[in-house]
């Protein structure tokens, strides 16, 4: 019953580990490219025509939303799924395109409990089932490989390793 849940939490767990480690954003793909510089102008001289010229050069005319000045020296042109930033002092222009990362986005959406409401209880049920699986799993194998033999060593490793990380990174 929980096959899908185990895959969702397992795969997105790995993805989120690396997200927290700042290796990547598992939900979004963001590509930035430098496009030909535009003529630098002061903020006061930026007009709709100036913005349209930039959109034409970058081939983003159809994706235009609106523009905004984050500060006196830069211009941000918002696009559907991206934006263009212009340094008004130098004319340096960057085009940033953003899209959702397929599959990972959906998995992370569930892992982060973004649906909230009913999903919370279904995910709780899955969590509880993992606890039951862990406890009953201790007694599944009997004999030398069971909890009274090799299994005890594996169990100890499984407990000591997280404790060691806590000791190194949190408790000292």
């Amino acid at each position, binding site marked *: 019953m929980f096959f899908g849940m185990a895959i969702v939490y397992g795969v997105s767990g790995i993805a989120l580990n690396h997200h927290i480690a700042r290796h990547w*954003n598992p939900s979004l793909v963001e590509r930035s490219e430098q496009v030909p510089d535009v003529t630098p102008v002061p903020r006061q001289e930026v007009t709709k025509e100036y913005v349209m010229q930039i959109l034409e050069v970058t081939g983003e005319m159809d994706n235009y*939303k*609106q523009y905004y000045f984050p500060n006196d020296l830069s211009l941000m042109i*918002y*696009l*559907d799924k991206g*934006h263009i930033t212009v340094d008004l002092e130098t004319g340096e222009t960057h085009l940033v395109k*953003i899209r959702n990362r397929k599959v990972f986005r959906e998995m992370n959406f569930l892992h*982060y409990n*973004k649906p909230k409401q009913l999903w919370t209880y279904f995910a709780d049920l899955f969590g509880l089932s993992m606890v039951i699986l862990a406890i009953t799993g201790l007694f599944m194998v009997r004999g030398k490989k069971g909890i009274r033999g090799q299994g005890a060593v594996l169990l100890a490793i499984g407990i000591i390793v997280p404790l060691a990380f806590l000791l190194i990174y949190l408790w000292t």
Partner: protein
Amino acid sequence: MKKILTVAAVAMLLIACNSENKKADVQEAQALDFATLEASPGEFENQTIRVSGMVLHVCKHGGQKMFLTTDSTEASLMVRVGPSIPEFEVTLEGSNVEVTGKLVATVVSSTGEEHDGEGDASAASSEPADCPTEEALKAVGEGEECTTSVTYHIEATSFKEIL
């Protein structure tokens, strides 16, 4: 099979009830323009309000916050997702939206410590510090300079893109 269908029907009912609540919130909300809210946010604290603006930025690490602004101001207002909103899509950046939700105050001390346990609120519009916390009042009493400030954000119950 009947049991599964019954559970599904109850789930749909719960979801439907929730969307009714959202509609009620939108109707009850007080419509404000950005300037009014920026001038005296304290007047609307804990009230359900409706405000429009351009989405300046959506936090890309989870989509749980976005920032609104308008042409008439350099301030921005932070909006957080409420329980009924899963996330703000990053594609909202540059769009005009109308947000309905509760205006929530956060007290931030000079060390950046927040007193309501919330996350980053530094970019929310703020009003001059009025030292509402006991710690701040005590500090003033002891001759220390008051260094707390209040920032505001909206906890959104609903939002929609507008033209």
